[in-house]
Every structure is written in C-alpha cells, then in structure tokens.
C-alpha cells in the first residue's frame, strides 16, 4: 500500500473514530445526566410524600389528644358543674323563698360556668384552631392547661418581631411542643417549664426547658426502641428542614431546641 494512501486511511479511521467517540460520549452524558436528575426528582417527591404523611399523622395525633382532653374536661369539669346545678335545682324548696333565690342564683352561675367551659372546649374540636390562632397563642393555650393542673410553673417568652410560618410548619412545631410537654409531665418530675420562641430574620428558634430529673441520652445512639417520641420529633424536624437538639443533665433538667429556617415558604397558605 502506498505511503500516501496509508496516511489517508489512518486519518480517515482516526477522524471517524474520534467523531464517533464524541457522539458516544454525548449520548452517555445525556443518559447519566437524565438518570441523575430523575433520581433527584424521585427523592424530592418521596420527601414531599413523607412530609405530607407526617403532617397527616400530626393532625391525627393532635385530634386524638384534643378528644382526650375534651372527654376529661367533660367528665371532670363540666359534668361536675352540671351535676351540682342539677342538685341545686332538685333541692329547691318553694316553701323557703330566701333559700330559693340563693339556689337559683347559684344554679345560674353554675350553668353560666358550664356554658363558658363548653365554649372553650368547642375551640379545640378541630386542628384548625391551632393554625387559626397562630403558633404563639396555641403554645400559650397549651401551657395554660399545664398550669391549670397546679403542679407546674410554666412560662412562655417570645423575642423578636413575630412573623407567621406556613400552616403545615406551625402544626408540626406545635406537635413537637405538645410531645415535649407530655414527656415532661410523664417523666421529668419538674416544677418549672420555660418555652422560649425567638423570631430571628433567618430562623425561628424554639426552646423548651425544664428543671426536672433529666435523663441519660446515650441509649438513643444504640437502642432504636429507646426514645421513640424523641426520634419522632427529630424526624419531623428533619422533614421541614429544621435542626433538632436535645440536651439533658441528670438532676438538672432537659432542654429541647428546634431551629426552623425561615425560607421563601414561610408565608401562610
């Protein structure tokens, strides 16, 4: 084969191979890029679905807690007041007018009290009241119920200019507050609870502190069945992109801190 011809053939083969290789690289890149993008979209969708699932779970838990509270209130409070009113009415004696006036007046007061309590309870019949009244008032309301028990000194502090978060986030934060308060009541044996809400431009920081007996956090890292409530809270915080820290010292108390980033989605929907 003449030298010139050989060179041409080599050029032809090299040129064709290079161009075909470029084409193959282009197609491979397209495949890889699209696959990665699709994977990313799938992950995002999965995260969105688990967020929605968690939200629904939170709503159901709040509802369940509310029903429990209503049933307790009806039994312990309204029921007692109405029973007392009934007793008053059934022991009325028309022959003694002075006593009668007193009993009518007492019954009126008792019925008014029952109406007032019922109205208060009706606010709690749906989870919407939490989002309607806003996070601050919902937490204050929750603390009010804790205070009512008479066993705790509960304080609520806010700092910074208040801004609303989206409803879903407020609901999840509220649920975390509720869960933490439940844990304190059940396990902490504390006298004092302080909830602090700090509205910063870039994030909202919530801290819940008690002066109870504290507990050892080490099993959280090893035993998956330990601290399911805490894991649940941590999971919820992660789903809304928030930071969740818990610290505890034996005989000094426990502190839960939640850092919720304030992004573009912080408007009420």
């Amino acid at each position: 084969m003449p030298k010139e011809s050989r060179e041409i053939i080599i050029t032809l083969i090299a040129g064709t191979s290079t161009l075909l290789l470029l084409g193959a690289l282009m197609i491979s890149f397209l495949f890889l890029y699209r696959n990665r993008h699709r994977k990313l979209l799938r992950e995002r969708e999965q995260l969105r679905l688990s967020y929605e699932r968690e939200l629904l779970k939170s709503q159901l838990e709040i509802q369940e807690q509310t029903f429990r509270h209503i049933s307790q209130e009806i039994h312990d409070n309204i029921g007692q007041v109405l029973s007392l009113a009934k007793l008053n009415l059934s022991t009325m004696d028309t022959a003694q007018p002075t006593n009668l006036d007193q009993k009518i007046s007492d019954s009126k007061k008792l019925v008014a009290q029952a109406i007032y309590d019922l109205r208060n309870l009706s606010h709690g019949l749906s989870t919407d009241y939490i989002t309607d009244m806003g996070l601050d008032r919902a937490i204050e309301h929750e603390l009010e119920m804790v205070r009512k028990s008479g066993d705790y000194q509960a304080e609520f502090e806010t700092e910074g200019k208040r801004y609303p978060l989206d409803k879903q986030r407020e609901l999840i934060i509220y649920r975390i507050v509720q869960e933490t308060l439940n844990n304190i009541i059940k396990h902490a044996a504390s006298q004092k609870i302080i909830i602090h809400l700090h509205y910063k431009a870039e994030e909202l920081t919530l801290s819940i502190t008690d002066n109870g007996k504290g507990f050892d956090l080490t099993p959280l890292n090893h035993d998956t069945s330990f601290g399911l409530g805490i894991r649940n809270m941590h999971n919820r915080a992660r789903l809304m992109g928030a930071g969740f820290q818990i610290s505890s010292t034996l005989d000094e108390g426990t502190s839960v801190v939640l850092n919720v980033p304030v992004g573009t989605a912080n408007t009420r929907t």
Partner: protein
Amino acid sequence: MFPLPIYIYFELGAFIVSALTWRSLKGTAFRLFPFFLFFIVAVELVGLYTAKVLQYRNGWIYNISTTIEFIYYAYLFSLTLRTPAFQKLARWFIASYPVLVFLNLFLIQGFLNFHSYTVALGNMFMVLLCCLFFYELLLNPLEGELRKVPMFWIGTGILFFHLGDLSFDLLFNLLKNDATGKEFFTSINNNLILILYSCFIIAFICQRSLVKSLSH
C-alpha cells in the same frame, strides 16, 4: 447484483417495521417515515442495478437521494425541536439546502459526480440539529425514560451516521482515486447504515409501545 449487501436488508427491515407500525406513526412527526424508507430502499436497489447490471455511473441517483434524505431529517427535527429559534434553523436548512446542492452540482462538482461538498455541509447540519435536540432533552428532564423516547433513537442513529460520514466527506477528494481508502470508507459506511436503521426500527417499536400505553 445478488447477493444484496446486508445494509439493504436493514433498510428493508426498517421499512417493513415502519409499515407494520404505521397506525402508531400516523398523526405524529414520523408519519412520512414509511414513504421515506420505501424511497430509500428503491434508490438503493436502482443504484445497485444501475452500477452492477447496467454498468452506468449512479452518482446522480445518490445526489438526489441524499438531498431528499437531509431535507427529510431536517423536517423531522423542525417538528420535534421545541425552541422556536432551532425550528427556524431547521426550516431555513430545508429551504436553502436544495439551492446549495443545485449550485454545487451546476457550478462546482458537476451533475454526474457525487456532491461531496454539500453532503459534508449536510452532515454537519445534521450533527448540529442532533446536538440541539439532545440539548433540549437535557433541559426537559420531566419527559419519560430516554430509552422509551422514539425521537431519541432516531436522533442517535442520525448523529452516529453523519458523524461517521463526516470525515470521509471531508477527505473525499483525496479518497476518490484511492481504492483501499474507498474500501475502508465503504465498510465504515455500511456499518453506520446498520446502526442508523437499527435505531429507526427501535424508534418505531418505542412509538408503538408509547401509543399502546396511552390508549390503555
């Protein structure tokens, strides 16, 4: 003339598959494919008969067929590209390419010779249109799986075929008197034809599955 080269069977196969899947191609950008492939098979047979049996020069036949081929592919891209500027580019090519081929044949290479200059230009344009199509695919990741997109296969076939042909067309003047070089090119070209028409066959099958899945 017989036995026929293997690539003609692939072209024939692509035509048959396109005819069999005609229902799913109807009403889409690929509706003219069966006619186009019939034309390609006919050209190949006539070209072969002219050269092998009649012993005449067949360059003019391929001058016509390659021009129609480029125009048809550009037409396909003009229908499938989404960006108006890219569509305009494809349409501009459709309108100007035959004029350029005519000018080349009339003024430069002659009617009986193969129009390698305009074929090289056509190849470059096809590669460009394929790149634009893949660029759009890159920007629209919401579409289904890539391997199920018919135009992806058609684009892949066209890209490989024209990329492979490009170096030959650019070296055509050096190669035309070199028998070994021509032989090499023919073997490369024949393999590229197999890739091109295999991709078309896959595209038609994908289109059929797509239409089937949409109708269910």
